[in-house]
């Protein structure tokens, strides 16, 4: 099941560049929440702070409180434990090139020492079914490399890989920006189904996509969160002038 996310006074830096300033936000469980805003506004940095991927860059740091379920991720836990509970799908599909489709999906479990092979088969099948890829790859699971799939299939493979470790939250950082419209619509359908089991946070450049998949939307600008509200409110009747200017295409 998904859990809620509570963010208080989150600040983040790259070197001396203050990329996120005083973010406060509550993301409800089992909902899809979209983050929109122009390039460089901090929305990617924000999701990377939710699973502590931000700090894998040696010059980056973050302060503040992020509660995922009842876990305070900056105080109570190690980054590797958090990343098992908070899965991530990246902008460009990044399957492990030397691994088969099966091994790509099983990678998160295998590399963390899980070795119950019978159970692994079930998890791989379930994850690929959940990411709507099973029917397309079930005959080549161990024969084909993850890199041999099309871009859209690769991205669904990456979703399956993230789901296989059974996270509570799924972060998606512009998951469709490198994909064609057909693949994009498949992934959007998927987000609808996955909401039942996971809390989803999706960064997107595409405002129509935010409107289609998310109940709530946050608008980021210059490292701050300008507005956060129900998606239909943001797109029809935003409270902040800057949100309206962005939505109507006056900048960004």
């Amino acid at each position, binding site marked *: 099941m998904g859990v809620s996310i509570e963010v208080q006074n989150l600040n983040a830096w790259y070197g001396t560049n203050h990329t996120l300033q005083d973010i406060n936000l509550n993301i409800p469980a089992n909902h899809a929440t979209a983050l929109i805003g122009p390039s460089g506004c901090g929305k990617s940095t924000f999701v990377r702070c939710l699973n502590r991927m931000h700090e894998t860059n040696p010059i980056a740091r973050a302060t503040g409180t992020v509660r995922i379920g009842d876990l305070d991720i900056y105080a109570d836990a190690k980054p*590797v434990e*958090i990343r098992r509970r908070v899965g991530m799908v990246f902008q460009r599909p990044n399957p*492990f090139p030397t691994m088969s489709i099966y091994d790509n999906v099983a990678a998160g479990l295998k590399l*963390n020492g899980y070795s119950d092979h019978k159970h692994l088969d079930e998890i791989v099948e379930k994850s690929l079914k959940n990411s709507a890829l099973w029917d397309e790859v079930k005959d080549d699971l161990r024969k084909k490399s993850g890199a041999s799939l099309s871009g859209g299939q690769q991205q669904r493979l990456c979703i399956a*890989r993230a789901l296989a470790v059974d996270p509570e939250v799924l972060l998606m950082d512009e998951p469709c920006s490198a994909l064609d419209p057909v693949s994009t619509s498949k992934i959007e359908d998927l987000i609808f189904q996955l909401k039942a089991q996971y809390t989803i946070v999706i960064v997107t450049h595409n405002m129509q996509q935010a409107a289609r998949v998310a109940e709530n939307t946050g608008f980021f600008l210059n490292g701050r969160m300008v507005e956060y509200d129900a998606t239909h409110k943001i797109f029809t009747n935003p409270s902040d002038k800057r949100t309206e200017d962005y939505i109507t295409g006056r900048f960004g």
Partner: protein
Amino acid sequence: MSTSAFELRSKFRALTDHTVTVLAVVATILVIVPLAVIFAELIYKGLSSLNWDFFTKVPAPEGETGGGMANAIVGSAVLLGVASVIGIPIGIGSGVYLAEFGRGTKLANAVRFTADVLNGVPSIVMGVTAYALIVAPHISWLPFLGHFSALSGGVALGIMMIPTVCRSTEEMLLMVPHAVREAALGLGVPNWRSVLSITVKTASPGIITGCMLAFARVAGETAPLLFTALGNQFWSTSLNEPIAALPLQIFIYANSPYEDQRRMAWAGALVLIVLIVLAVSLVRYVTSRGVLKGNS
């Protein structure tokens, strides 16, 4: 007017294209010709001395004809085995450190600089070094010291392999896309595990090529063996005894006053090259069997 200027430009481009293609072909031929000449020469001069005895017998006593280089072939295999056991793990380990754990640190810069210098050290100096470390010292409770031995020759060759393996491993690891590392970390895989199981595995074809280059290079080295493995006219596979090696035997026979031995030297050189090609091909075949569809 504009049309003719366009035509002129097109012609110029076609000419440039043609010229560059021809130059590339010429360069390719210049690379292949010396290799082909060497191979042809070796076959021409060496093939006639190759027979069953060459692969099964030890060198004939001075002045007698016949005999073979069986002991040198086995000796080279022993020396290269010792060298690989020393050179490949240390080389790969230091390369992984340079690319993954020590990036930007002073230690890493020092190691990289040392490796580059080591790569330029003449091979005979490596031999003298191994001599000073292993052959010269006499320490009563370390029986493998204090005399010429296969071990000292293997150490000399192994040290020579380290810089090549180290630097090529580093280069290959740096070519692994950042996205692949992020994918592993994003799954909650600890960094050390991600490096070993994902990054190194992704780069492994290149790393293996680096190891093969280093192996092939030291396989033909003579100078580092002169004061270490020393050579041996008889059968020996002991790491504690002087051992024969193909390059050493070729060196000795090539300087021989006997026509028969000089012919044997040519045959030895041919066998050395063929064995290196076989060893490299075998490793490539074995390591490429696990590759999946859709990967090059």
